[in-house]
C-alpha cells in the first residue's frame, strides 16, 4: 500500500519513513490542523488514527474506528470536554470518548486505542501500536 509523505524536511524527503521500519508515521504539518477539529491518519499496516489539535495547543490521537457504529469515523466527531477532560463524540451515535485515555464515558466497557503523538520539525507524527511483525495483511487489519 502507499502512504504518502506530505512534506519534506531540510529539503529532502526522509527516505526512512517509507521503508516500513520506523514506527512513526507523519500525518501533516501542525499548522494544517484546526483547533477543536480532527483529521484521519492512515498508518502503515492499515491502522487508522483520529488526530486532534485541542484549543490549548496540545495533540491527541485515538483509534479512528467507532466501536459502536463499526465505521472509521471518530476523526469527524465534535471535540469538547466533560468536567475538563478532553473528549470526542462519535458522529454516528454520539457516544463520548476520553481523548486522554480512550475510554468511553457513556459505556466504561468500551475503549478506543490511544496513540503516542509527537511534533517533529513542525510535523505531527503518530506512533504505531501494532508491532510490525504482528500486522495483518489487509488494510484494515481485519485480515479479510
Amino acid at each position: 500500500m502507499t502512504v504518502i509523505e506530505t512534506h519534506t524536511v531540510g529539503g529532502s524527503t526522509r527516505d526512512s519513513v517509507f521503508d516500513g521500519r520506523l514506527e512513526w508515521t507523519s500525518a501533516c504539518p501542525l499548522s494544517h490542523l484546526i483547533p477543536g477539529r480532527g483529521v484521519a491518519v492512515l498508518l502503515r499496516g492499515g491502522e487508522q488514527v483520529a488526530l486532534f489539535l485541542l484549543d490549548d495547543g496540545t495533540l491527541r490521537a485515538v483509534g479512528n474506528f467507532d466501536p459502536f457504529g463499526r465505521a472509521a469515523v471518530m476523526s469527524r466527531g465534535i471535540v469538547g470536554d466533560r468536567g475538563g477532560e478532553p473528549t470526542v463524540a462519535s458522529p454516528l451515535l454520539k457516544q463520548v470518548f476520553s481523548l486522554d485515555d480512550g475510554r468511553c464515558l457513556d459505556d466504561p466497557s468500551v475503549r478506543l486505542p490511544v496513540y503516542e503523538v509527537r511534533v517533529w520539525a513542525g510535523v505531527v507524527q503518530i506512533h504505531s501500536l501494532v508491532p510490525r511483525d504482528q500486522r495483518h495483511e489487509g488494510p484494515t487489519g481485519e485480515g479479510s
Partner: protein
Amino acid sequence: MSRKNVVVVGHGMVAHRFVEALRVRDEQNSWSVTVLGEEADAAYDRVGLSSYVGAWDRKELALAGNDYAADDLVDLRVGTRAVGIDRAARTVTTAGGDVLPYDSLVLATGSYPFVPPVPGHDLPGCFVYRTLDDLDGIRAAAERAKAAGLAGIVIGGGLLGLEAANALRLLGVTPHVVEYNNRLMPAQVDEGGGRVLDRLVTDLGLVTHTGVGTEKIEAGSEALQVTLSDGSVLEAGLVIFSAGIRPQDELARGAGLELGGRGGVLTDRTCRSTSDEAVYAIGECAAVEGTCYGLVAPGYSTAEVVADRLVGGTAEFPGADLSTKLKLLGVDVASFGDAHATTPGALEVVLSDSAKGTYAKLVVSDDAKTLLGGILVGDASAYGTLRPLVGRELPGDPATLISPVGEKPGVGALPDDAEVCSCNGVTKGAICGAISEGACDIAQIKSCTSAGTTCGGCLPSIKQLLAQSGVQMSKALCEHFEQSRAELFEIVQATGIRTFSALIAQYGTGHGCDICKPVVASILASTDSDHILHPKQAGLQDTNDHFLANIQKNGTYSVVPRMPGGECTPEQLIVIGEVARDFGLYVKMTGGQRVDLFGARVEQLPQIWKRLVDAGMESGQAYGKSLRTVKSCVGSTWCRYGVQDSVGMAVALELRYRGLRSPHKLKMGVSGCARECAEARGKDVGVIATENGWNLYVCGNGGQSPKHAQLLAGGLDDETLVRYIDRFLMFYIRTADRLQRTAPWLDALEGGLEHLKEVVCDDALGIADDLEAAMAKHVEGYKDEWAGVLEDPEKLARFVSFVNAPEQPDPTVRFDDSGPRKVPVLVGMPGIGPGTGA
C-alpha cells in the same frame, strides 16, 4: 361467543369519545359498533365551532380518528337519521328504512337550540348556532349584511351568544346582543361581574341590550326589523338565536322511555335508562338522575361510564364540576363552585376595578374560612389555584387571594387530592408523583399524567409544582453553558460576539461539547451570512455540516441537490443520473420531493458537487438544521382542481428561506386546493390555497409524534403570507430550545397559539419589523454553501479520507451490490489496540 351489537345514535364529541373508549376497553372484540350520525360530517369539535370562522375548513374541526377507518368493528353511517326504536324487538329504524338490531343501544343525540316562539323567528335570515351547516348559512347572510352595511342581532347573551357575536364581528358585521336578563352570561357571572364584562365587550365593538326581550321579527324590504320589549326597533341583516339548548329526546320520547323533569333520557348513575336496561344515554341528551349537563367534560364522563359498563365494569357517573374558564372575545371569564352564593350564610368578598376592567368575587362560608366558589372577569389568572380550593379551608384572608398585590396562595397550599387539571381529572398528588418519579419538565408531566393537555389552564400551576418540588427547571444547554439556547441567541445578538471561544470565555466554562458547539454554530449562522466552514466556525459543526452532506452508517455520505418545490429540469435530472452512475451511488427519492444519492466518500464529495453546481444546482441543506424542502402539489397551473399556483409559491418560499439555519430542521408544504395533496398540514409551515387567498398553518410535523399544523391566519394575499412566515420563522429561531421543533415549541410557548397569532399577526410584542429585517438580511446574504467550498482551496483541502494520503479512499468502506439494491457493509473490529475486543 357470538359478537354483540351496540348501536350508537348520534355522532357528536361524546359519541366519538364513547366509541373510542369502548374500542380501547373491549380487548376481546366482543362488541361491534354501529354509529348513526345525522349530520353529514363525522364527529367534530363543536366546542370549537367558532374557530370554523375564517378558515371555513371542516377538516380543521374534525376529531382525530373520527372515521374509524382502520377498525372493522365500527360501522359509521353519517347523514343517517334514526327515526324509531322498537324496544321489544331491540331494533333501530333509520330514515332510509334500515332496521338495525341491537343488544345495547346508546343514545347520544345531544341537544337542539332553543328558539323562543317570537313571531317571525322562522323568517329567512334567522339562524341558530349549533352546526357547521348553521355557520355556513350565517356566513352567507353575514356577507350580504356586511355589503349592505347592516348589523347582526344575537338573541341570548350567554356563553354561546357571545361566541356567535364574536363570529359576526370576525365576519365584519356589527353584533347587537339582546339578553333578557339584566346582565350578560347570567349563568356564570353576577351583576357586578356582568357590568365589567359588558364594558369589556362594548369596548370590542359589541352593542349590548340587557334586560329586554324580543317582541317580534318582521321582514322589511331590505332588512329584518327586530322589535324589542322596550319598544325600540333594530334593523339587521340576520338574526342568530342562542337562547340556550334543550336535550334532543324526541326519539326516546317516541320509544316511551322515561324522561327527566326538564327533558332528556332519565338514567341512573350508570347512565342506563330507568325504563329499559338495554338502553343507555350519554352526553347532553342524558338526564343523569334527572340532571342534564350542557358541557363536554361531564359528557365525556358519561361516555366512559357506559363504555366501562358494556365490558362488565362497575363505573358510575362521578358528578360534574361545572366550573368554567374561558376566553370570550379575548376577555377572561371564570366561574367556579357556588358562584352565585346560594349556600345559606355564604359571604361574598368582592374586588371590582372598573378602571382596569377586572372583577373578582370569592364566595366563602359564614365563618369566612372555607372557599365555596367564585367569579373572575377580565383576569382569570387566579383560577388555577382557586378552583381546586373549593370546599377547603382557605390558606389566608380571602381578600388577599384576589387582591392584585396580595400574597397568592400558590398551588403548594393545596392538599394532594385537589384536582389541578380539571379537564383530565389529574390531582396535585398525581403530578407530584410523576415529578418524584423523574418527570422534570412540562412535556414529561403532560405525557405521564395527561395533565395540561386539554385547555392548558393549569400549566402555570404545574410549573409552580415543578419549581417547588425542588426540581431545578434547568434551562442550561449543557455543562458548559447555564443559559438556554434562546438566551444565548439574545447574548449573541446583543453583544455581537462572533466566535465560540469568546462566547464560552465570557458566558460559559470549559471547552464546549457536541451539544453546545452546533447550537452556537447555528446561532452564528442564523445571525450572519458567513460560510459555515469559515475557520472560526468549522470546529463547531457536526460532521454533516462539516462535509455538507449526510453521514450514513458506514461513514459515507449522501448528497441531496436542492429542487425548489420539487421542480427539476430534464438536463439536471440527467446530470444527477450520470453522477450517480459514475460514482456508483445508490439513488432514492426523499419524502420531500427530491433525489438522495447515497454512498459518497468524503473525497468524492467535491467532484460530485462540481458537476452538480456546473449543471445549475445547489446545496439542498439536507444535512443541516435548516430549511429542508417546500413540498408542493402541482396546483392551478396543471391540476383541474387547483385554485392557486402552489408550485410557484413553493418555489418562491424555498428560494426565500433556503439556507436558513434554525434550532431544528424546517419543512414546508404548499397545496393548491383543499384536497391538500402536498400534505402541508404535516409541516412546520403549511400553506393551503383557497379561493380567498392562502391559509397559513404552522407547527406541524410528521415523524415520531405527528402533529397537524394549526391555522395561524386565513385568506392571505402573497405579500402578507410571506410577511407572516418571515415573522413566524424568525420568532421561532430566536426563542426555541435546541433541537425543539415548532410543534413542541408552540406547546411550551406561554399563551400558545393565541399568543403566537398576536405576535405574528397583530405584532403584539412590537418586534415584527425587527423579525422581518432579520429575515431580509438572511435572504440578501444567502450564498450556495457548496459553490463556496468549490471556489476555496483551503476548504476543499478538508475533503479527504486521510490527511496524509489525500488520494487514498478509506479501505474500510465497502458495499454489497449483490442484492436488489446497493447496501453498505460494516466492517468487523480491527484487531488492534487495547479494549477493542475483536
